């Protein structure tokens, strides 16, 4: 498959509702420019193709962290907090952050991936500490954490486009029947029940990080069902409730109701508050790029970008790591006492072909994403409830868009200029196929998707767009498919092999900032323990 016809394109990526709405309409003229970014795809491809350069120089470091995403940066953060400064972070990309990276232009910074952090619950100590350190929260004299008003997501938070106008909130109330509303109420009651539930050890049913949650048999049993089965078992069959719950699966896991374990599907709704209501969240114009900058600043020059790790070989003590400096072509052998492999599981198995990793990595299915940042010269027409931070389109295959300037007091460019970050997860059942589709898209195809999707809600969107850039995330988001979360492979995945430690959000089977941070800190603390440090765990 190399070229899509317009109808195929819309149907395949945005679904029948959008394809039908645009059917017969003229294809957009696309009077704006843009590009497909993520050029460093090629570096990843090098690895997949089995690129094995020969080292010319040899160096030593106490700790080598591979991967400059949230997990790798958090491992470094943990070491620094304990006073261990002899480490290096090697990141393949020219910029750190991985799936939490951000971009910026004359109008505003904007996210390319992760864009928010829910306010932590008191048991998430490390997230609280980070929020305090970043100045996103303050501790009151009574011990309560208060979050900075300017960094909490401003109102209005969400709106939904349905039929011909926008409505406040995410549940499609407009036009809902009594039965729909009843189903929604019953679902919420279930969520409330799970949110309030505590097991024999006082643990929540679902928690973030997930390790804090219950592993009681009846909770774990949910993992064997799909979210679709669970809804069915509850008698929740209406189109609207299924759409609403599937939206959560697509948004947080990049997968469908059938493709999500019921444990994960409920985790999304019932892990953040005690009351089951929507949580407060922290967000910034550049999304979680804000957290990345903070952590990268702390790591300073120990964070090296544009360095691809091609091999990790364990030694009797420590390991030998081959690192290729993409810009200079230099290849380095690093001898190190401890390694943190903070990269996706599949990539980890490639650079470190330990039999257990190789055997089990194939269970880690990661979904593909398409993200577009559209720079607007002015706001488009819009009917109904005013612009919110998160703007979702009912019935579309996309996840809608987030407005980068929603959180800022000031932006560049003309009044009304902004950046819309538009998200699409390819929920196709077979990840390899989704990946192929993603890479068959041209810039034009992607731009057409964005315009076709938004045009229903904003008829003049095309004339508002000044520039549109696209990012393809190939293996971006781990899928908590039924049975996987509590599978032995997943549960074993965090265990170190010799002096090689593992960190990455994949290890939780959930793609979340807190999970990535958790594993980074855990790996950091494992190393601290081996260094003989007495540490008070932050986990």
């Amino acid at each position, binding site marked *: 498959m190399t070229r899509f016809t317009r109808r195929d394109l819309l149907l395949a990526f945005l679904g029948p509702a959008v394809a039908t709405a645009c059917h017969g309409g003229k294809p957009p003229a696309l009077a704006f420019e843009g590009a497909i970014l993520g050029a460093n795809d090629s570096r990843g491809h090098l690895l997949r193709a089995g690129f094995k350069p020969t080292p010319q120089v040899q160096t030593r470091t106490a700790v080598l962290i591979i991967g400059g995403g949230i997990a790798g940066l958090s491992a470094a953060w943990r070491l620094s907090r304990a006073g261990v400064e002899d480490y290096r972070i090697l990141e393949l990309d020219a910029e750190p952050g991985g799936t939490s990276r951000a971009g910026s232009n004359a109008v505003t910074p904007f996210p390319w991936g992760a864009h928010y952090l829910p306010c932590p619950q008191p048991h998430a100590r490390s997230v609280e500490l980070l929020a305090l350190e970043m100045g996103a929260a303050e501790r009151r004299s009574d011990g309560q954490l208060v979050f900075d*008003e*300017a960094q*909490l997501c401003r*109102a*209005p938070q969400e709106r939904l486009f349905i039929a011909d106008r926008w409505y406040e909130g995410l549940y499609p109330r407009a036009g809902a029947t009594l039965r729909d509303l009843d189903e929604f109420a019953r679902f919420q009651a279930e969520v409330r029940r799970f949110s309030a539930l505590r097991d024999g050890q006082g643990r929540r049913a679902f928690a973030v990080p997930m390790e804090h949650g219950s592993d009681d048999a009846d909770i774990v049993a949910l993992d064997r069902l799909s979210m679709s089965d669970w809804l069915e078992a509850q008698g929740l069959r209406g189109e609207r409730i299924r759409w609403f719950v599937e939206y959560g699966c697509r948004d947080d896991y990049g997968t469908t109701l059938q493709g999500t374990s019921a444990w994960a599907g409920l985790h999304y709704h019932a892990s953040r508050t005690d009351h089951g209501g929507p949580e*407060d969240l922290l967000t910034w114009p550049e999304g979680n790029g804000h957290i990345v900058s903070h952590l990268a600043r702390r790591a300073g020059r120990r964070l090296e970008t544009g360095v691809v790790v091609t091999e990790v070989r364990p030694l009797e003590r420590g390991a030998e790591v081959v690192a290729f400096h993409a810009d200079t072509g230099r290849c380095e052998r690093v001898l190190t006492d401890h390694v943190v492999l903070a990269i996706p599981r599949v990539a980890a198995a490639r650079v470190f072909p330990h039999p257990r990793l190789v055997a089990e990595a194939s269970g880690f299915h990661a979904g593909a994403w398409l993200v577009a940042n559209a720079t607007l010269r002015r706001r488009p027409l819009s009917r109904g409830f*005013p612009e919110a931070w998160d703007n979702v389109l009912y019935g579309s295959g996309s996840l809608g868009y987030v407005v980068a300037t929603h959180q800022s*007091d*000031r932006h560049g460019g003309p009044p009304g200029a902004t950046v819309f970050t538009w998200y699409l997860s390819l929920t196709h059942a077979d990840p390899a196929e989704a990946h192929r589709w993603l890479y068959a898209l041209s810039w034009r195809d992607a731009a057409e998707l964005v315009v076709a999707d938004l045009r229903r809600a904003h008829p003049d969107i095309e004339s508002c767009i000044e520039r549109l850039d696209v990012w393809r995330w190939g293996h971006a988001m781990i899928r908590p498919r039924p049975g996987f979360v509590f599978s032995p492979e997943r549960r074993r995945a965090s265990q170190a092999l010799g002096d090689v430690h593992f960190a990455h959000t994949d290890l939780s089977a959930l793609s979340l900032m807190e999970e990535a941070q958790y594993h980074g800190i855990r790996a950091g603390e494992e190393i601290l323990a081996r260094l003989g440090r007495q540490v008070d765990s932050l986990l």
Partner: protein
Amino acid sequence: MARGPREAAGARAATARTTALFVAVLLVSTCGLVYELGAGALASYVLGDSVTQFSLVIGIYLSAMGLGAHFSRYLERGLARRFVDLELAVALVGGFSVPVLFLCFGRVAHFRPILYAVVALVGTLVGVEIPLFLRILRRRLDFKDLVANVLSVDYLGALLASLLFPLLLVPRLGLVRTSLAMGLVNGLVGLWSTWLLAEELPALGWLRVRCAGVILACAAGLAGANWMTSLAEEALFSDPIIYSRQSAYQRIVITAGRGSFQLFLDGNLQFSSVDEYRYHEGLVHPAFAAAARHENVLVLGGGDGLAVREILRYPDVHRVTLVDIDPAMTALAVDLPMVRELNRSSLLDRRVRLVHEDALAWLADLPPEARFDVAIVDFPDPNNFSLGKLYTTRFYRLLRAHLAPGGATAVQSTSPLLARTSFWCIATTMEAAGLFVRPLHVAVPSFGEWGFALAEAQPFEIPGHVPPGLRFLSDALLPGLFVFGPDLARVPAEVNRLDNQILVQYYEAEWRRFE
């Protein structure tokens, strides 16, 4: 003698043409009277005092018509061509009279002379029409019949105009479009008469091109009138719109009627020139009375310059920084004579510095040591989320941080009567931001009962003295403003924060009752 079929056909054609000419007279005279009515209506709208204005305009118009009739005698040769030219002139001058007058009003210092000059010009041109017509038709008809017929058609046109104008034209089209539509009719009559009077006209082609040009101009004017004011918009306001502009941030509209004018932003009344002094005195002077010093003053919002007018009464004011997001708003306060007169050119005072920025962003970026003795906060009511953010704890925390020791601030806080919870939500929010608040209220007839929140960063007493010579406030009146009767008394309200914007919800719910 029997007439041949050709002759009969010729006679029929001649009668048809004569009838057509009478229809033209009807149209022309209708247009003529509509111009007169339009100018009269406009004059009474913008200048008030409708009896005087109407009779002045009618008087001038009628005497100008007499003058025109007199001038018609100097037209001798090529009468048909002159008639077509005259129609084109009436189309342009009459058609554009009302839009031009609307555009002038508010932009020029002396409006009346222009008004009367335009009325006289249109009247003169219209005055030439009928006599000229009579002379053209004289050759075709019996003179006695002719005069009687033309005059009765002329009066019929007047009747038609006086019925159409109030019943159909103004309600459907508005004044500006009515006048342009009549211009279009005059232009079409001009074009039509090139056929009716073809035998007497040389160089028809060129004449028709000119007609087409004028018709196009009127049509373009009609289309362009949408740019000046939209029909839908005119229906929103009770008085005619005399200035309307979409800036990058908001729609600015000025209406005028009964001798006063009003400023609206996005359809919401900001002030009426009749009673704005009550509002601005109540906003500014209590804060000045409470503040320890007056040197360095901050005004947030208030781009109309009216609060600054009150501020500049104090000789000890050294510097006023006015932050208004919209350059179009402060430009209007400086450039529109009517507004500038009202604010006494306050924004041109050399003590005043204008900043065009979002007030919240500007405050957030202020150097931490910047301090103001008095801060006047005069934003439009919190009826949307972008305005709502200017009433949050975040905003008031920043404001408090930049008050000098002993400094005072006054915040316009909507109506404690019509939007009681909203009013008290603002006070509650300011308190949550660490300010000590003394709410007050004043009666502003065009708004209703209006409220302000006077505040300092430390506890303070209700102030006792205002400068002498104010129109509304006096020392005796002052304490009473701080007394809230039972129907205005405090009600519990949540704190308005960026992440809840609860005030916008209160406000919506409360004002919806009055829509």
